């Protein structure tokens, strides 16, 4: 995975043992993935209860191709994350939205998780439609 901002799908385990997934924007950095969510969100609760995650990182040039990674998610520094989200991503986020996210990070309403990647599966492309 190259450093930068990418679309991804985050899958976690709920307390009842069932899966739940979320489309996300992730920041790839030095072999880890960082993302933000509201501190009071169900997603944050699930991750603090069970830190095991699987992420499908979508290829920027081919949305039918994705790399699966597995790792443990841990809370990390929110202020530093706010500075890392500047740059080209899969979607052009309006400046007002960026400012709101930054404010929520700095006021502790949002938190940041870092996934240290323990395992990965090479990128694969879905088959052609039958």
């Amino acid at each position, binding site marked *: 995975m190259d450093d930068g901002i990418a679309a991804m799908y985050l899958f976690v385990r709920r307390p009842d043992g*069932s899966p*739940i997934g979320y489309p996300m924007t992730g920041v790839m950095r030095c072999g880890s993935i960082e993302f933000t969510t509201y501190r009071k969100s169900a997603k944050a609760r699930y991750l603090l209860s069970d830190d095991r995650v699987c992420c*499908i990182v979508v290829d920027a040039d081919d949305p039918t191709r994705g790399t699966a990674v597995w790792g443990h998610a841990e809370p990390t520094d929110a202020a530093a994350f706010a500075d890392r989200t500047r740059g080209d991503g899969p979607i052009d986020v*309006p400046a007002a939205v960026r400012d709101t996210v930054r404010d929520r990070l700095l006021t502790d309403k949002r938190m940041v998780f870092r996934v240290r990647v323990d395992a990965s599966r090479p990128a*694969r492309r879905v088959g052609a439609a039958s």
Partner: protein
Amino acid sequence: MSRPDISMSRGEVDALLGRCDVLAMGTIGADGWPTATLARCSYHDGALRATVDPDDPIAGELARDGRVCCLADEHESYYEIRGVIAHGRATVHGGGAIDDDVDIHVDIHVDRVTSFDFGRLPH
């Protein structure tokens, strides 16, 4: 201040699933870890079906425990971000036993859906 309801109507959910041809599908493996893949999909008359490679380990996991979560989304621009999170049970068909090259089909009985449409956010 309460957060705005940005969920889609049933018709909008059906329309998004109908025009989506790839989704992300996840389950929990026997070891307790989440696992996921991208899969070709189709949606007709409320029936959601995914197709995965015969060598994709998620097929075996879904055959063992059919609880599945599927994500379909689209995002031409920020305020056009729309998505569906479908929870359900998977039934796995085909592959492996006769021909290792045969795709595996997964029928998903959807129990519950959540959705979002960023176009409904105040802006």
